[in-house]
């Protein structure tokens, strides 16, 4: 089975801090994704990556950046955390074949105080 591991289940940070969310997958998938999930808004794509050192903006990239130095790891960075970034963050990965689903981690619930 595919395993997508997010480094923290719960995280509390202060406004203005630089925050790193880490995600690792063990299936050699080419594609990796970061979403945020908010009540009533569903999942919104922040960034995704289709190869090492490659990244594409999703629908809500403002205030975030990403890093993919190794194929198995995809990091989400909040450059200067703000209270409106309090949310559930979900990481996913998928193989390159167009008919393959995404596999999700358990999520990181991030609170910015």
């Amino acid at each position, binding site marked *: 089975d595919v395993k*997508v591991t997010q480094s923290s289940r719960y995280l509390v940070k202060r406004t203005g801090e630089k925050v790193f969310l880490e995600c690792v997958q063990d299936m050699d998938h*080419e*594609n990796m*994704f970061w979403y945020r999930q908010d009540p*009533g*808004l*569903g*999942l919104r*794509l922040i960034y*995704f990556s*289709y190869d090492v050192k490659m990244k*594409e903006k*999703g629908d809500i990239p403002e205030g975030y950046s990403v890093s993919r130095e190794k194929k198995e790891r995809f990091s989400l960075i909040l450059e200067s955390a703000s209270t409106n970034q309090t949310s559930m963050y*979900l990481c*996913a990965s*998928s*193989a*390159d074949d*167009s*008919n*393959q*689903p*995404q*596999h*999700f*981690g*358990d*999520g990181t619930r991030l609170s910015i105080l």
Partner: protein
Amino acid sequence: AQSVTQLDSQVPVFEEAPVELRCNYSSSVSVYLFWYVQYPNQGLQLLLKYLSGSTLVESINGFEAEFNKSQTSFHLRKPSVHISDTAEYFCAVRRGSTLGRLYFGRGTQLTVWP
């Protein structure tokens, strides 16, 4: 961009009743369709998928979904729900040319009452 509409944000039902969760997507030439389920405090799990072939697909826990190309729909059904089916359900669409990107609906919260 692809859009996915889940017509009901909340669906309350009694145990053992049938349920249908509706999903419509904007038309596209080649799409792959998915339903995901999210239990409280967990990530999303794949429930079932339509790739090609038979338009009716089934999951191992009694859910089924039917791909209807003319109506651009992929509704999820279960003839008799259990309390353990209480969860949020997401419909998602993938196009062949989008670098693996999925487009999600906003989700439907299914609550099963005893």
